[in-house]
């Protein structure tokens, strides 16, 4: 018997218009389908990985889930509450704002250059939790300590901090609010490997210590595998595969996932025999709704793939794959 999920996302879509509406024939403006019909759940205490290549919509999805932008369609239920009814601009002062937080990709850029490390952490606490004075200081102190930020760094500006330190500030800022859901948008992408490990370990520790659920967005499969319980693989705005992280990477069912996993360089120098995924993704602008998005790059695609968009099908081990030809392997 499963618990009710912390986050339940159903049929979420995000489309951006590009250019202007044509004034000649009244044809609607072309749309970028950044996120298309995405449904997923996050259980309490779970870490869900979101992987895919650049432009697959994972960051857009992260922003939608973090309530930084409004979805075009679909629902986001957080702890039983429907959030899409409230526009993102109003959500800023919502009590639930503190419960969903996000750590941004570039920690350096996500700290106001005019804020010290202390200001950056204290700002949200002050605004969302109403702390001030010594109470605020105590809260910041606690968050900083949790993230391993020594007091000596508090008065530094972002450009005076190292990459690892900035990442810690970014994490401390988010966890200071004690969120229930923390979205991590490529938190280690800008870091060297030697520092990356410590941040990953920090995140792992915080998760258990504070009981937070993570949505971990990354393009680095090796990192995702380390941290995530389950993983969602996206391609051109759609989910192509979902399943437990280890299982998906060990035995990918979708041809895209297979190609992706095979392309990751390995320390042991063993090169995968799986053929390379050549070519480029199709355009995300007004894609054919009846064709598999991966068609054209897919090594096994047939005419069927241009006639019907494959839906996510369930497979054993709580796995789901959106491919006409996926078989249990």
């Amino acid at each position, binding site marked *: 018997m499963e618990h009710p999920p912390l986050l339940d996302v159903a049929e979420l879509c995000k489309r951006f218009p590009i250019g202007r509406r044509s004034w000649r024939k009244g044809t609607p403006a072309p749309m970028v389908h950044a996120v298309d019909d995405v449904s997923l759940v996050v259980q309490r205490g779970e870490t869900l990985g979101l992987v895919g290549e650049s432009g697959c919509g994972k960051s857009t999805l992260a922003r939608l889930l973090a309530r*930084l932008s409004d979805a075009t369609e679909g629902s986001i239920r957080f702890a039983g509450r429907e959030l899409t009814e409230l526009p993102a601009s109003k959500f800023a002062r919502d009590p639930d704002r503190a419960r969903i937080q996000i750590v941004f990709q570039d920690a350096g850029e996500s700290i106001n250059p005019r804020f010290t490390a202390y200001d950056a952490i204290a700002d949200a606490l002050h605004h969302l939790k109403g702390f001030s004075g010594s109470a605020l200081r105590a809260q910041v102190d606690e968050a900083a300590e949790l993230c391993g930020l020594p007091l000596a760094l508090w008065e530094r500006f972002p450009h005076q901090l190292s990459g690892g330190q900035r990442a810690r500030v970014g994490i401390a800022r988010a966890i200071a609010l004690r969120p229930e859901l923390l979205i991590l948008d490529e938190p280690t992408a800008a870091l060297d490997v030697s520092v990356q490990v410590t941040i990953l370990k920090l995140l792992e520790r915080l998760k258990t210590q504070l009981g937070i659920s993570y949505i971990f967005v990354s393009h680095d499969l090796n990192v995702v595998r380390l941290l995530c319980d389950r993983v969602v693989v996206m391609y051109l705005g759609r989910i192509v595969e979902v399943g437990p992280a280890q299982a998906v990477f060990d035995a990918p069912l979708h041809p895209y996932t297979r190609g992706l996993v095979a392309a990751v360089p390995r320390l042991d120098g063993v090169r995968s025999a799986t053929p390379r995924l050549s070519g480029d993704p199709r355009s995300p602008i007004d894609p054919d709704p009846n064709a598999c998005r991966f068609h054209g790059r897919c090594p096994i695609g047939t005419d069927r793939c241009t006639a019907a968009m494959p839906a996510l099908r369930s497979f054993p081990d709580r796995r789901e794959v959106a491919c006409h030809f996926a078989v249990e392997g």
Partner: protein
Amino acid sequence: MKGLAAPLRHARFVVTENPVTGFALALFILFIVAAVFGPSLAPHDPLASNTAQALQPPSGQYWFGTDQLGRDIFSRALVAARLDIGIAAASVALVFAMGGFAGLASGFFGGWTDALVGRLSDTIMAFPLFVLAMAIVAALGNTVPNIVLATAIINFPLYVRVARAETTTRRDAGFVDAARVAGHRDMGVLLGQVMPNIMPLMVVQMSLTMGYAILNAAGLSFIGLGVRPPTPEWGIMVAEGASFIVSGEWWVALFPGATLMVAVFCFNLLGDGLRDIVDPRRRT
């Protein structure tokens, strides 16, 4: 403390590294002193005529010579600093407030705010700016506040442009998102996060437009739409002296003109230097 020390060190570096900026800074201080203490420093009464001493060439007694009415040009040029720099500063402050905010809002909110501010800017830009300033002053009367207003209005598009561009690049910056998830609403983000960040560039802009504002006010005076006589003002003094250049009394126009030029020069160099301090790579 620490926050201030670094920029100061940087500033010192820029000033010492670039002697031109240091020179401009010294000039700037000189002009500020003239503007503040001018009337008490002037060796002669800038308004007192002495027709017996009219059109005297520069001498030990009259450093810049005397004008048609025998007034001391040095004293007049010195005292004019307050008015000219004052007009420029007031107009720059005004346009900074108006144009800065309009550009900020337009860059941040986009949509119809942007369209509205954009149209307003376009309209102003479509005017030949100096003629617009002339028309405004002519229509509203040639008083100091109207000169300030006219100068501010013609600079409006420039400020909108700078503020808007800077805001647009920062609107999607990580720290804006961070502020949103920290519970700031749009206005809070705009005023509390974005604005302080574009401030330094706007200050540079102010320094650069100060020079232009002085030129503009002087240009209006030259045409005859400036402040009222016998108030000393650089543009008027040049205009008055213009007819004397050809007859050999070059100092009547030259010294006020040179003072005007040096003041504008100083503000421009200073703006350049400030830009170096704010952002060394963006020197244009």
